[in-house]
């Protein structure tokens, strides 16, 4: 089998520890604790978990926006942990990030055309107006908007602007961290469809970070479920939905509010995260081809 586009092995990211300015010991938090996953070219992997599960940190470390404290990240056959900023620069062209809050991601004092062109300028590429206009068209925005400022746009339009910037350098991989959570419901489908169109046109691979499974089921081919810094289950969407193994995966599935008033209501079993922190010695076992579950 060919090597996947992205291969993350035993990734660790810790915060705190004995680094306090006054020399006091601070507890070490393993935000990302020995996780492994891969993303094939053109594929979408959903990374799902509750707030504090480490899913966003995992996304940032994968892109080397934060350093790893252990493990490896191979991208297009190259190990990228430990690279210097200069060595990382050509890799960064290939990997981009889209954030949850398109209001915070934009620079309020920069015209949106310049914002989209910025990565091209930084990488010494042609940032001619025509090329920016093309990017605007690809994400469904009128190129005439280029000279405007962020406050003139709605949330959905702002997210389109962020997406235009992210695809400017023709990346092969994008980490999208809850990219529709902050948008109005009537806008979410527009942005999800745009993600799929871009994948079809540009062959993009996505790491789609989400806190609920309903959109993941629709958008992703495979899913990894995170709990307290660990991946507890990873499988195809079909496997996760038809045969969930880990109790936390089951509780996530059970928690999706179903928009069908005819479905009988039943009380759900509470899953207490605090008493179900995966033990350190737990290892993943493959219970079916491509279906891995953390074993206690």
């Amino acid at each position, binding site marked *: 089998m060919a090597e996947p586009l992205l291969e993350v092995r035993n990734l660790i990211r810790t915060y705190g520890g004995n680094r306090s300015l006054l020399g006091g010991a601070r507890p070490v938090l393993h935000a990302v604790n020995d996780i492994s996953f891969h993303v094939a070219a053109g594929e979408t992997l959903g990374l799902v978990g509750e707030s504090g599960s480490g899913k966003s940190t995992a996304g940032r470390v994968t892109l080397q926006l934060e350093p790893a404290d252990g493990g490896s990240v191979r991208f297009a056959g190259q190990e990228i942990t430990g690279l210097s900023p200069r060595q990382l620069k050509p890799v960064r062209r290939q990997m981009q990030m889209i954030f949850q809050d398109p209001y915070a991601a934009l620079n309020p004092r920069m015209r949106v055309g310049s914002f989209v062109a910025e990565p091209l300028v930084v990488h010494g590429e042609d940032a001619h107006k025509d090329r920016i206009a093309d990017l605007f068209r690809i994400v469904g925005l009128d190129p005439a908007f280029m000279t405007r400022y962020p406050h003139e746009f709605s949330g959905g*339009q702002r997210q389109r602007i962020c997406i235009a910037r992210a695809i400017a350098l023709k990346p092969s991989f994008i980490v999208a961290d809850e990219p529709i959570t902050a948008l109005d*419901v009537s806008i979410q*489908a*527009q942005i999800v469809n745009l993600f*799929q169109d871009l994948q079809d046109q540009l062959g993009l691979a996505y790491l789609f970070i989400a806190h609920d499974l*309903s959109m993941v089921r629709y958008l992703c081919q495979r899913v990894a479920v995170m709990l307290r810094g660990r991946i507890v289950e990873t499988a195809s969407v079909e496997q996760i939905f038809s045969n969930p193994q880990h109790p936390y995966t089951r509780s996530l599935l059970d928690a*999706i*509010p179903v928009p069908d008033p005819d479905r009988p*209501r039943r009380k*759900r079993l509470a899953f207490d995260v605090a008493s179900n922190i995966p033990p350190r010695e737990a290892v993943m076992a493959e219970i079916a081809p491509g279906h891995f579950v953390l074993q206690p």
Partner: protein
Amino acid sequence: MAPPLLEIRNLTVAFDTPAGRVHAVNDLSYTLNEGETLGVVGESGSGKSVHVLAMLGLLPSPPAKILSGEVLFQGRDLLKLPEAQLRELRGGQIGMVFQDPMSSLNPVLTVGRQLREVIERHSDLRGAKAEARATELLDLVGIPNPGARLKQYPHEFSGGMRQRVMIAIGLSCNPKLLIADEATTALDVTVQAQILDLVRDLKDRLGTTVIWITHDMGVVAELADTIQVMYGGRIMERGPVRAVFRQPHSAYTWGLLRSLPDEGARAQRRLYQIPGAPPDMANPPAGDPFAPRNPYATDRCRTEVPPLRPASPVPGHMVAAWYDLPARLAAEAAHG
């Protein structure tokens, strides 16, 4: 028949902004019966949050202005009530839970102190009895070890636990009416599920009347008896949840339900998308506010605001639309 618990008549709320007067709620009228759970669905500018803040006297004026209307709660007009009496009602007969639990709790007071304050203000319980009630409430909303948790400060609680505290405060005086505005939106889905279970449980046991404001059709389907879909400061459709979900008569309701990611969408690799963006309420469209985004809009929709009219034989199923959506959809289906 018993009189409704809440009756809103012709409520119109505007904000005076540098760009001019913005109408956030336009001539809104509805009634809510005792024991009923109303799910209010809407997005930016729908008026779903503003109308409850207005009726509770929680909108700062200026810039907000209630231009007209009555809000009758158990027969009393809340809009004419002196602030002192309104304050008695809020947190007493009317419990409230808002989206952001961090900014709703006082960071320098223990959670127990804040709960006790509400209990002592609105009931006869004092001292150890108020403390016992506070413990009972935390236990009720599923916070483990409630006795010890009462002595802690808000920052010692996770987001989900803080929101449970807010719900405990909202429920502390066995309100007749519980109003929750996106109360579970910021929570993890597993915590949201537990809170929905809890609210269902309270309805069954105490007969609490609920207004649950959300953008999530799934939450409405799980919790509500009646759904009210709002857009541009108006009700677009309202009715029993089953009737509205089964056959929506507003193109907006229909679009919201169709854009949900279901199995069919996965097979087609395409979600139905409502075109356009929510209206700029400083420059609202003339006529039906949803008309610019509605593929079934008629000329009349673009000029004249449609009144709420009976939508189907189902009692209480109302729609504000000049077009006949089921007929249009049937015609489309017949033409392939």
